[in-house]
């Protein structure tokens, strides 16, 4: 591996990256605003300047060149010697930080970004505590630039990351710069707001509090938030995300760096599409029904009741007419546990993958791009784990039916018992034909987030959890197995699907995805070593 010497430290770097990236990869905190590895380099914030050793034009002797170089724009080369710790660099940076704050309103107490603001962090670390400017500050307007996003121009440092994002990644070019010099502002064309399926990323890209998410505006101080690494269940892309929550309430989702999957981005559908989890119409407790009377069993009895119901059914009808409908919203672990249980009680059980909503075609960004030009894709398959279920069902070797065939079979009276898992954000996922035929089932267990015709008819209804409350792994469209953690507790009274399925499958103690994957790995080696797909974010700010 090539090596570069930065501040007397020899550092290995991946070929083809700029010096700044090499320094960041090595864990050095080099301040920068305009640079972002996912965008073109403009080298305009002038914060990452460095000195470099170069051969003297006459003597050829290697020495510090009397010039500053933007480290973001200078490719790292083997044997290069650079420094960020010289007096010239340090004082230059200090002055630069003073410039950034000259016209900044210093309204941190009412700014959403406070606490995760690189203007705060850099000022503290690299700046000076006082400004020498005694003149009035320039006052810039606040702008409502789109349905989801606000722009507080006076906080802006003009890094233009957001502008480059809409030009280079979303390809929608809504954002632009108006005016020039110190009056430069980010803007949109009046009447052409920032409104594209991945626009939320500009808020993440903004290193300061200039671009704000209306959804999160004034909701939380960020230092109260705790983050859990997760995988977005919105489509089969499997974007790595972070769920930010406080006191078991989710406030926002943010993308995590995940090279080759979502890189630094996520779509708005995923970013804002989790609110169903907050609904107070959620099913939170198990429910038993006999005829028209229902009762709520104790959680500790649920396992036994289900065991009993299914064994009784098999005793009476055999397991030939038994079906388990696994939902593509389930994690691999949950699906495997449920299928294990079903196979144990009814060896001839048929496995079905629940309905998979498909919307249009895969949506590439920038629109019309192919191959390397494509920066981000929203998948048409609106479920996170079809591939995972296929792997598990394949390995189990049981009979399978498509969901449509299953619905038909129920109508034809060929299915006697079914465990149907939903867990979809939409309450309307149950097809009419199934609603109509459901009465023909001798035994129905329905596991879902919300009440449907199935839960109303089910002998046993079980609550399903939202992805923010669960842990496990999803297999994305390309077969990549990615783990996710739970960020919050399920609603009061509700148990996690993983936990009760773990108990049902005959295991004791606390459900953890690791434990289940260890069991699964006995027959499916690909689950042996499932790691956090995304390493710690390479790009801190």
């Amino acid at each position, binding site marked *: 591996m090539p090596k570069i010497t930065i501040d007397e430290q020899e550092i290995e770097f991946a070929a083809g990256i700029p010096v700044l990236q090499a320094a960041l990869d090595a864990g050095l905190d080099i301040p920068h605003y305009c640079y972002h590895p996912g965008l073109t380099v403009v080298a305009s914030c*002038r914060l990452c300047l460095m000195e470099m050793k170069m051969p003297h034009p006459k003597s050829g002797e290697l020495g510090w060149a*009397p010039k500053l170089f933007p480290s973001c724009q200078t490719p790292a080369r083997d044997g290069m010697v650079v420094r960020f710790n010289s007096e*010239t660099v340090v004082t230059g940076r200090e002055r630069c930080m003073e410039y950034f704050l000259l*016209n900044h309103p210093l309204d941190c107490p009412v700014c959403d970004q406070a606490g995760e603001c690189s203007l705060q962090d850099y000022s503290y670390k690299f700046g000076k505590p006082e400004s020498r400017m005694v003149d009035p500050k*320039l006052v810039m307007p606040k702008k409502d630039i789109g349905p989801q996003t606000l722009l507080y121009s006076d906080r802006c440092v*003009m890094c233009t990351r957001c502008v480059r994002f809409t030009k280079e990644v979303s390809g929608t070019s809504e954002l632009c710069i108006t005016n020039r010099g*110190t009056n*430069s502002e980010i803007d949109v064309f009046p009447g052409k707001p920032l409104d594209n399926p991945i626009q939320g990323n500009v808020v993440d890209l903004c290193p300061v509090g200039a671009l704000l998410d209306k959804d999160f505006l004034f909701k939380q101080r960020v230092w109260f938030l705790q983050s859990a690494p997760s995988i977005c269940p919105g489509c089969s892309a499997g974007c790595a995300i972070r769920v930010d929550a406080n006191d078991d309430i989710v406030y926002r989702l943010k993308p995590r760096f995940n090279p080759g999957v979502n890189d630094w981005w996520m779509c708005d559908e995923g970013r804002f599409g989790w609110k169903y989890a907050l609904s107070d119409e959620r099913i939170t407790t198990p429910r038993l029904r006999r005829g028209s009377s229902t009762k709520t069993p104790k959680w500790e009895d649920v396992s036994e009741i289900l065991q009993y119901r299914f064994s009784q059914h098999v005793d009476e009808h055999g397991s030939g007419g038994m079906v388990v409908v696994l939902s593509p919203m389930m994690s691999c672990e949950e699906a495997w546990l449920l299928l294990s249980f079903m196979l144990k009680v009814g060896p001839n059980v048929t496995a079905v993958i629940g309905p998979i909503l498909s919307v249009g075609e895969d949506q590439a960004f920038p629109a019309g791009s192919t191959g390397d030009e494509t920066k981000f894709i929203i998948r048409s398959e609106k479920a996170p784990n079809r591939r995972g279920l296929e792997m598990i069902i394949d390995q189990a070797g049981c009979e399978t039916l498509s969901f449509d065939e299953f619905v038909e079979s129920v109508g034809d009276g060929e299915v006697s018992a079914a465990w149907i898992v939903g867990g979809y954000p939409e309450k309307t996922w149950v097809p009419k034909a199934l609603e109509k035929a459901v009465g023909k089932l001798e035994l129905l267990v329905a596991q879902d987030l919300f009440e449907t015709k199935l839960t109303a008819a089910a002998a046993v209804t079980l609550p399903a959890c939202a992805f923010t409350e669960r842990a496990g792994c999803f297999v994305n469209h390309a077969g990549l197995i990615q783990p996710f953690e739970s960020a919050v507790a399920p609603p009061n009274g509700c148990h996690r699907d993983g936990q009760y399925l773990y108990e049902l499958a005959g295991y004791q103690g606390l459900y953890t995805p690791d434990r289940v994957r260890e069991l699964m790995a006995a027959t499916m080696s690909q689950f042996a070593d499932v790691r956090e797909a995304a390493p710690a974010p390479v790009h801190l700010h």
Partner: protein
Amino acid sequence: MADYEPVLLKNISLEGSTDLKVYESAGGYAAARKALKMTPDEVTEIVKEANLRGRGGAGFPAGVKWGFLPKDREVTYLCVNADESEPPTFSNRVLMEKDPHQLIEGTIIAAFATQAQKAFIYMRVEFHEPFHVMQNAIDQAYAAGYLGKNIFGSGFELDVFIHRGAGAYVCGEETGLIESLEGKRGCPRIKPPFPAVEGLFHKPTVVNNVETLCNVPHIIERGAAWFKSIGAEGSEGPKLFCASGPVNRPGCFEGPMTITCRELIEGDGYGRGMRSGKEVKAVLPGGISMGVLTADELNMVMDFDDPRNFGLLGLGTAAAVIIDQQQDIRKVLANITRFYSHESCGQCTQCREGTSWMDKIATRIADGVGRTEDLDLIVDVTKNMGMMPGLSICGLSDGAAFPIRTIVQKFRGEFEAYIAEQPPTSTLRVLSTFN
């Protein structure tokens, strides 16, 4: 220098100097015919040999610039920098307004040497008369077959178009000019890649100043040795100088780069001295961006090197504005700070924020609310703009730092005297309303 024989301005007093026939009867287009019989490399070699340094301000040798073009290129562009926006410079205006064919001929030769088939003359929009003169001359050249296909039967083809700017000083920076030509904000590009490798529309591009190109026909016609016989080593060839302000004869003059600033102001062939009752207080000798000279420093030689000995950035555009004793130095400073604050493109932090901050300080001083520490402060701000190369993408911030720093340093006593005369409470009162 009474015996100096004008080269660049030799035609301007001819009757109908803008006309093709007049230009040709004075020997025009002979150099282009000669050049097109040579190989492009031979032409470049002669220009290199002559050490024709760019007249736009930076002084980079034009032949060397042409030599940077990659050998395997397919398309090359030539851009003629006619964005002349540096106050108080007007030599390009004179060249285009009075002798447009000289520029066209220089453009043809430069395009041939660089094998460019398209040349854009990027002209500032405020130039109305020069624009019409140039466009008429271009039309004449097309009609005569000097532009278009198969020029002088050489098989060489060249189209020349005028591209009008829209009011931005920074478009005079070569990559700002290219961005502007591409229909964008005129923000200078990061280098590398240099325009010779990746310029207009990502193609190899050469950007030359009007005056630089006007020298080219004469070099081809009379040879590199002749060119080098004018002036002194490192500052060879004829040069245009501008003088403005209260001199007896403000104008654009031609001479060798051996004259001093004093000669430019007082010489018979130049400014002919100060108007009666006026005395020199200060001179900004190279356009405003190079810095200031005091009345004691007028022996500075107007060449590429001597200005550095006086704390100046360089020769710049060799356009001097003479400031007389009656002028308030605070207003001079505020004029200059406003210029840079208004013209900064706003990309680089130091320049965007620094120029406007300096303008706020200088305006306040001019308004009679200055503090002595403001003088130190403004000098300190310039230190982060022009002390070390590489602080910003282009030279605008260096150009801002030099005049501001030198004015404050060289006229500090005067500033201090003004500040001392301010009513003691005024500073405090005004400042307290700000915070």
